[in-house]
């Protein structure tokens, strides 16, 4: 949960400051965190793997931003227009595409980072044994 919350906050803050590239970056941090926790605590559910955690964080982070956006202007109208222009999608589908994209990008970033952590933590005991 910590990784998810921190990841979502990172995605939201990172997007606000730096744009969409925050998705894979914050997703990678969330994934790495979760991957490290998994290594330390084997009882942690596999459903909360690095990729899933990061994907959820990405989706949640952008969902929060869109929700906050509704206070600032007609977000649903933009979804309707943009969805219509880009392939005749209904507004709800454009919301879904946006959140799916966020989940995919953050999730793949998180998956890669989690795998890297796993590789590194696997290698570390081996190298210590070699000493």
């Amino acid at each position, binding site marked *: 949960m910590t990784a998810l919350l921190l990841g979502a906050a990172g995605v939201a803050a990172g997007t606000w400051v730096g*744009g969409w590239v925050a998705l894979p970056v914050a997703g990678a941090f969330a994934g790495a965190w979760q991957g490290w926790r998994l290594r330390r605590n084997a009882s942690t559910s596999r459903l909360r793997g690095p990729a899933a955690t990061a994907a959820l964080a990405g989706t949640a982070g952008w969902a929060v931003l869109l929700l906050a956006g509704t206070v600032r202007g007609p977000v649903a109208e933009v979804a309707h227009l943009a969805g219509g222009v880009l392939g005749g999608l209904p507004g709800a589908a454009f919301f879904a595409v946006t959140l799916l994209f966020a989940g995919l990008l953050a999730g793949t970033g998180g998956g890669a980072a989690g795998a890297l952590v796993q590789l590194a933590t696997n290698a570390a005991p081996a190298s210590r044994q070699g000493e």
Partner: protein
Amino acid sequence: MRPLLRLVGWSAALAVVLVPASRRSGPLPALGPLLDPVHGVWNAAYSAELPESSSATVPGLGDSVHVVYDDRRVPHVFASTSSDAYRALGYVVARDRLFQMETQTRATAGTLSEVAGEALVEIDVEVRRLGLAEAAKRDFEMLDRDDPQLAEALQAYADGVNAFIGDLSPGDKPFEYHLLGADPAPWAPVHTFYLLKRMGWTLAFAPVELLKERVAARVGPQAADALFPADAPIREPIVPHRGARWVGAHVPPPVFPDPGEVSSASGFPRPESPSPVLGSNSWAVAASRSASGNPILAGDPHLSLTLPSTWYEAHLVVTGEIDVYGVTLPGVPGIVIGFNRDVAWTFTNTGADVLDYYRERLDDPDAPSRYLLDGEWTPLTMRVEHFRGRDGAVIRSDTVRSTHRGPVVDVDGEAMSLRWTVLEGQNELRSLMDAAKARTVDEWLDAMSAWHAPAQNGLVAGRDGGIAVQSAGYFPLRPPGARGDSVQDGTTRASDWLGRTARFPVAKNPSQGYLASANQQPYDPDAEPDYLGADWPEPWRALTINELLRYRASHSAAELEAYQTHPTSIRARTFRASFLTVVDQMAEQGRVAPKVAEAAGMLEEWDGGYDPANERAVLFETAMEALEDGLWDELAVPGDDRRTATPREDILWLLLGQPNSPWWDDRRTPATEDRDAVVAEALTAALDELRREHGPEDGGGWAWRNFGQHNIHHLLRLPPLSRLRLSTASGPGLLNPMSGTGTHGASWRMVVELGDQMSARGTYPGGQSGNPASRGYDDRLTHWVAGELEDLRFPRTEAELRAAGLVRAKLVLTPPRP
């Protein structure tokens, strides 16, 4: 091994997602920047409405400028100097219409492919061959020397636009830029001239000589002259002369060429495109014909209807110098149509023939470098144009050739050069700026003397009681005997223009107490026989408005407003009567088929109206189409349901008076038809078609709302951003006109009463905002569709507007701190 494989797998998946996230994929822009909830397309939601209070810094300002937006989102610009006012106008127009400004500039410069990709490169090629942007650059380069004050105004406006662009964060750019994955380009002062050239292209590119050549190839030159005459048979000129006159004339029969002589190019020319209704209305009543005793002016220019709209409303105030309200073209630092405290003005297109084609002889048809002139091979001027794609790479090159007259173009496989006033020196902006400051009708007319192209009928009314109309523009002075409605010989300088005509058609304070202009022939040819143009727009709107104004002693502003959407037309009255007369005559002779009588009975029930609920207008229009189809079979293109050209309806009126003319014979049938047979067939066909496709006549399927629809497309023709199938009380020949596609119509309706206080109402089909997510994108459409105008706010000060409780938002523009 498995952790490594997992790392490789996830990395590959990340890379796969990152590609469409960061790069364009076909028509889709990069998804990352597009979908970003803060900086992407969603940002359009956050800038949809104006903040109540905002400020910005604009380089070059001499003092702070207060911009107060009223309840209709119109900016009232209060500035200390005119330069500051134009700077602020650039900023506020860009704030609402930046994408439109850039798109229309690129459409003239031939650089659309740089933002929209290769699909539009052919449009760019066509535009650059005409040389509009080159002509704009030439004019602009002369400006520093000829009119430094205007050059300064253009620079100030550009500074304002660029200050707005400079303030934009990547996410703040307008909606369409996100969709295209593009960024706004800086605005240059010359871009204003591009837009003026584009207006010239829209309003003054009417190659009647090519039309007549194509028709002559089908039916002979005499017939072509009669079908597309220089003088309108039905006359109600702009410069008043003996009222309305319907001048009958014999239409010579078609003469068909020997099939052996007909080449595929000239014998079966390309069919015409659907012709839009491009015209405008304007009228003014003098104090003597006004119910209130104040002059009243009404205007509604008809143009292609788009979203965002062609026009943008604004009010500029510079104490002691400018106080002008009206509509501007986004990108032009000035009010084009509007009013100040003393005069009001509007325009209709003159439609004069200001474009001539010359048939050239070139040394090499494939790669010409010289043209024959007075017996000598003369070098062509050549310019190589490069066209770039989205990534900046050259995707196409083209060599544009010109003679001393103008660009060489391919016309049905022949090389022709063209000379066109729009491509020659211009200073329309000077006219507009001076017109905005005019205190009297005479001062306004003087201001318009600098107007060059496109030729416009400027109608003005003054608070001093005067009214006037002047067809301002550069009218070619051709060699003796030469007319612009035939292609000229390009091999001799004897064909060249000699200069410009010295006289403009003008009428001032006529005894009839009113003036009206609806693109009709400006002069009655009996009063002024000089050639000014040919194939003038049809006379119906001019006849209708003259009739409305003539037969009532006085008119109120509310009545003039109602006339703009008057529900019937003289066209409908004329041809309905023709149908019924022919059927009556046939009935007297006992040769009316029951179905013809039935259709005629329905037309008799018709009140001539085109309101959305009317169930008879469609029968009339369908019968008119069938009548023209039966009449103009000689101009039909084999294998195509279109015609080479369709003569004006006043030629149809002439032929209805010649029942045995050979034109009535439909050569596609073995029988020999006369007028009565074609009229009967048209009524029968119309009735059958409507019942077959739209059900019984009183079942709702015939309601005009199903046919009379306006379609207002977004500039990119994106349906979600367009407003389509709008049922309006409009139709062919009405003062509120509509073409077949419904894409043209009244682009700005305005009525101004010039009393002690100016009182004005207006509206246009769209809204001030270019942001499709904004309420201001189309908030005026409801009024426009209903034919209603809104009160225009014309405060002298910000406090006046504030006291009336009409302030919606405020923007303060300040100079940068030293």
